[in-house]
């Protein structure tokens, strides 16, 4: 059952990722991205990482992608304004991406399928469990993260502000 779910999710994930790249309209790209992120959240659920799955949907699909959408609409980019690259560049881009995939695959090909203990701790991905780790071992990085956000926020506001002359 879960194996079938894994494959469905994988196919949808890859399909939507491709559509992100090849859609003509930016808004469609955004929507496919959101779809792709939902699929990834599904993968997280399959892996018993429930907390991350929810956070993924909230942060990525809920916040980040809305930001993207908002920007696109704000800039009125929905129309197909993007002048196309030359075909040569497109071919080069596909070849390059394919080459990278080829290399990655060929690097991974020799890797053995390490047998995993099938009985794993199903509670590990729960909020309580992760919270214990986050607020004990990763306290300092977590607090640093707030500073990062603060500075990002200040930077974004500063950049987005209209210049007053």
């Amino acid at each position: 059952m879960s194996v079938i779910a894994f494959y469905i999710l994988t196919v949808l994930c890859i399909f939507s990722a491709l559509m992100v790249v090849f859609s003509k309209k930016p808004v469609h790209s955004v929507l496919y991205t959101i779809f792709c992120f939902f699929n990834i959240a599904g993968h997280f659920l399959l892996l018993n990482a429930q907390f991350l799955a929810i956070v993924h949907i909230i942060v990525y699909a809920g916040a980040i992608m809305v930001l993207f959408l908002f920007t696109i609409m704000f800039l009125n980019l929905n129309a197909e304004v993007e002048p196309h690259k030359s075909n040569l560049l497109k071919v080069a881009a596909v070849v390059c991406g394919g080459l990278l995939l080829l290399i990655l695959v060929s690097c991974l090909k020799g890797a053995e399928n390490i047998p995993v203990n099938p009985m794993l701790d199903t509670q590990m991905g729960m909020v309580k469990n992760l919270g214990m780790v986050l607020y004990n071992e990763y306290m300092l990085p977590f607090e640093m993260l707030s500073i990062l956000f603060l500075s990002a926020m200040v930077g974004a506001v500063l950049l987005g502000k209209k210049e007053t002359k």
Partner: protein
Amino acid sequence: MDSLIVLLIPLLPLIGFIISGTLNKQANHTLINGLTCGSVFVSFLLSVILFYQLQSGSAPISYKLLNWIYVGALKLDLSFTVDALSSIMLLIITGIGFLIHVYSTGYMHDEPDYARFFSYLNLFVFFMLLLVMGNNFVVMFVGWEGVGLCSYLLIGFWFKNNAYNDAAKKAFVMNRIGDLGFLIGMFLILNKFGSLNYQTVFDLASHAATNDPTITVICICLFIGALGKSAQIPLYTWLPDAMAGPTPVSALIHAATMVTAGIYMIVRTNVLYTLSPDAGFLVAVMGVATALFAATIGLKQNDIKKVLAYSTVSQLGYMFAALGVGAYETGMFHVITHAFFKALLFLCAGSVIHAMSGEQDIRSMGGLRKKLPITHITFFIGTLAISGFPPFSGFFSKDEILAKVHEYNGGFMLFTILAITSVITAFYMFRLYWLTFWGNFRGNSHQASHLHESPKSITIPLILLAVFAASAGLIGLPHLFHAPHLLNNFLAPVIINAPTLEASASFEIALIVVSLIVLALVTYITYQIYVAKARIPVADADEKGISKWVANKYYIDELYNALITQPLQAVSTFANNYIEKYVIDGTVNSFRWLTNTGSLLIRQIQTGSIGLYIFGIVIGIICMFVFKFYLA
């Protein structure tokens, strides 16, 4: 206390140099006199104190200023040692140096660059003291180079005259050739004995085998250094040209002190030379050859200072002859007496030139004895001393040299040449004396009206030097008189293992008698020629035959010019025109071209297009994967 004195002796002239060197041209003469003369005088007094301590049997006095060069096994200190030998040199340098400082206050009175002159003189005294006081070869070398520098600065003191500058450069370059020999000698010593400290080297050397080839090479290298500094064949040509400097400089540097540095060095390293009779023989032969050669040139010179310059070269040759046969004390003896009478002669010449308003040609002089009585008397004493009339100082030292050379195994030939040279010396000195002070005045009327005896600051040093030139011989009486040889006894601790050469009393008597007769004869003949018959040397252009050769100094300068200077210039012209232009500049320019073209090419990659940059990043990542997984 003693070590403080040792430190102060060189320090005072250095302080004098620094202060007077920073004063400007308008500085008060009295201040400069007080500073520079005073510092040297105090150094002299301190040297006298040290001398008496050593005289009363004190051990050599050392003072270590600082650890200087500590590299690996090499440990060099900047330290001073005053032993008998250094002490004598100290007395000469500071004593005669002080008299010449006093003399200069009169002689250079109208010089606009008064402060500069005195600062150079003090600097010279400082370096000379460093040279003789150091207790290792490197300190000596520093002093050695320093006096060379001061010599350069003072010869070219009137730097607006290009000929003087050339003379200064010549002196410097000739000295460099010798210095190279000295340096190589030092390296060889370091290699052989593992140290450059006198005490260590000499202790090791006194156990070394005689005729060790390395030691012979060391001795020859050091001797090359001495050849340059002490103006011996083949490196002597700078000294006559060095007369371009002010006369006190000629007296101090180029007669009394600096040129004897080579002799000092060989006496200092006498242990090595005793071990190498071959090197000693070479020293003796070169000394004798120089003595004769320079004396013959002196016969035909008409410039009062040039005559004295060649005489200096010749007398230095005597000293080397003495050193070469192993009579180190005798060499030092002649250094002492020579310092007195040659400084005296030069200062007298300065006084004459001063009176003659700068005229140096003896053909324009004559009859000066009436106008310059003190100069005349003192010059006469100097002439007698250098010619070797008893009981003047030159007689004792020169006869001792002759006697020692005669006793040297196989030295009869050398002895004969030296004896002939001493006759020639007397001849040209009396020629100079008669032509300058006797006969009728031959200068122009302006000079005649201007003739006057020099001021006291000039005459007093002359009188003092004359007293010493007359009496200095008493420190080294021959055995004949059954008096102790004071100098030899004093120097005994410094001279180690030297062979003993003792002339028999009958030989000494014969030598005295013969030299007296010959000298009297020479005096009479020269008097006849230059006073009674009033024969004046002909103009340079009228010289013929051999005398033309001699008057032109055997064309040695021209020979050097043709053999060394011209080919060198040809090579450097070639290098300048071709190697510099095509090889050096070509290389540099081709690098410029490479960078320029290369950057023009590589700059094309930087398009500013972000898309291409991302391509580059991805291809780079791919390459890294390939390298990591397939090539590494």
